[in-house]
């Protein structure tokens, strides 16, 4: 498979703080690549730098679309999209206007059909369609995430980056978001998925990177990473999709000594053994 994104020794610094140091990473066409890691590992800095939103050192190249490396605008015109953790919707505008603006740079392409694109997004997110004339700022958290994702999909992205799409959402909504991610994967959209919800992310991913303290600690096929003892200990032990802590189980903020330790890591998963369920009851009382 051809490489879409090639990062070579990417570093990001804020004043004196190093957020990322020498990260090298590849994302391939038709695959879902995931980057997992705890809070403050530099995941958001990574996608922001890839999108050109923040200055960075090292090389960001898009081998298929060399021009895209010029600026954030050039990336968007190459149909490389980021759905940021902060959503960044246009609050006072309607859902419909937010979606239309998603296709802003495509509006002058030949054969551009706004209505067809809107219909596509409406099919994926019927709830957005119901609220089409509502101001974006009146939406609930889950709907906002759907709108942010829908806005990106309006561009029919060739490479889509999702930053913590499940953050702060109820399990039901998380399931819906992941359903859409799987659908996009089937449609052949290459995805770079940033997640704290390691289990859900690894389940859809082909390839995974584990980021900690701004450095890649581990990489490999999703299956290998999922099987890695250290990952199991640090992330999967508590990354329950329907977990009692809500969708995003918070890993320890600072993991002393790398992957293997962590205060909650050794705690057995209460609902182990129900892996087959797409989402599982957190409380377990009813099962």
């Amino acid at each position: 498979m051809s490489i879409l994104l090639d990062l070579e020794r990417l570093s990001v610094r804020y004043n004196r703080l190093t957020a990322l140091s020498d990260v090298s990473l590849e994302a391939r066409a038709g695959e879902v690549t995931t980057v997992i890691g705890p809070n403050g590992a530099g995941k958001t800095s990574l996608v922001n730098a890839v999108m050109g939103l923040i200055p960075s050192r090292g090389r960001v190249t898009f081998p298929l679309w060399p021009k895209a490396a010029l600026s954030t605008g050039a990336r968007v015109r190459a149909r490389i999209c980021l759905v940021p953790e902060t959503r960044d919707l246009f609050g006072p505008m309607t859902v419909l206007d937010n979606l239309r603006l998603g296709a802003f740079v495509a509006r002058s392409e030949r054969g551009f059909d706004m209505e067809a694109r809107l219909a596509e997004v409406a099919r994926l997110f019927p709830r957005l369609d119901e609220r089409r004339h509502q101001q974006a700022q009146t939406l609930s958290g889950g709907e906002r995430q759907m709108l942010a994702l829908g806005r990106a999909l309006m561009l029919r992205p060739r490479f889509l980056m999702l930053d913590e799409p499940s953050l702060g959402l109820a399990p039901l909504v998380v399931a819906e978001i992941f359903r859409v991610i799987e659908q996009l994967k089937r449609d052949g959209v290459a995805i770079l998925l940033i997640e704290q919800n390691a289990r859900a992310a690894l389940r859809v991913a082909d390839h995974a990177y584990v980021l900690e303290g701004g450095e890649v600690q581990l990489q490999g096929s999703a299956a290998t990473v999922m099987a890695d003892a250290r990952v199991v200990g640090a992330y999967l032990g508590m990354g329950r999709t329907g977990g009692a802590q809500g969708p995003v189980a918070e890993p320890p903020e600072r993991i002393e000594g790398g992957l293997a330790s962590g205060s909650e890591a050794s705690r057995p998963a209460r609902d182990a053994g129900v892996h087959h369920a797409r989402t599982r009851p957190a409380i377990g009382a009813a099962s």
Partner: protein
Amino acid sequence: MTFDIAAVLFQDGVANGAVYVLLATVLVLVFTVTRIVFVPQGDLIAFSALTLAAFEAGHTPGTVWILALGAALALILAGGKAAGERNLAGLASAALWFGAVPAAIVLTALFLVPKEAPLLWKMAVTCALITCLGPILYRLVFEPIAAASPLVLLIAAVAAHFGLSSIGLHVFGAEGVRTPGFAGPPLVVGDLVVTRQTVGVIASSLVLVGLLSLFFRRSLSGKALLAAAHNRRGAELIGVSATAAGRTAFIVAGLIGAISGILIGPMTTLYYDSGFILGLKGFVGAIVGALAIYPLAALGALLVGLVEAFASFWASAYRDVIVFTLITPVLFWRSLASPHVEEEAE
């Protein structure tokens, strides 16, 4: 007061009001796209009239030096920043906007506008000079703090006004100018005599309000500009650069300012510092429209013109006092209409 006097005052008021409409519209435009209360808009208008007058007198207008200086500074800043980030696209854009374009305009103004050139050509060069100042001002004063609060941006705008008027005094001198009328003999409608100039100002302000209103309501490009004000990052992510949006707003502001200056030049004597009071009166109008709604802002500006006309009949010395005190009830009404509620998003 007889009906005749009232009619004349009304006509005066509408003519002045139309000028304030031009201003109020630009203030709304710039505010909705960048959240800047663009106080120096009045200065651009005054500079435009002063520039045209200098061309008429056969001098090189001081605007040329302001533009050259501003462009050079902007080029250094923008070019330096782009070079530091090794951003080729940024470097090219800086060279174009702050290098090539201003240079071409400055050279044209220096060598290609003889005293006997046709008025239309002089107007065109004037427009080019003033329009080009818009984006330069944006780059020098506002772009580095584009994400700051409206209050900080307002302080910067006021500082920019003082800078402009101080340099204006230097290059234009303290004398006022009145540019020659260009539209031909006045029109006579019944008892009223209306100059074509006035008709021009009213017509262009109407067209402007209509166009901008439609543009921001209906077109996707208009909404993209507004998006930049709502959420800068969000705008970047759909391919709309907030910087480019701000620059666009300032180009339009410069252009409208230049045209306004040419239109009102023959109606009133303008000095290097006339712009401030003009701008503030436009602002009082814009407040009526909450700095957001074009037709309302235009109505407000018209109201300011009328109040001013009638005030100068009754108490001409206190004309400005009355106009600026008018803002108090207007603000009071606005504060009742849009109480400041701090709501937390979930």
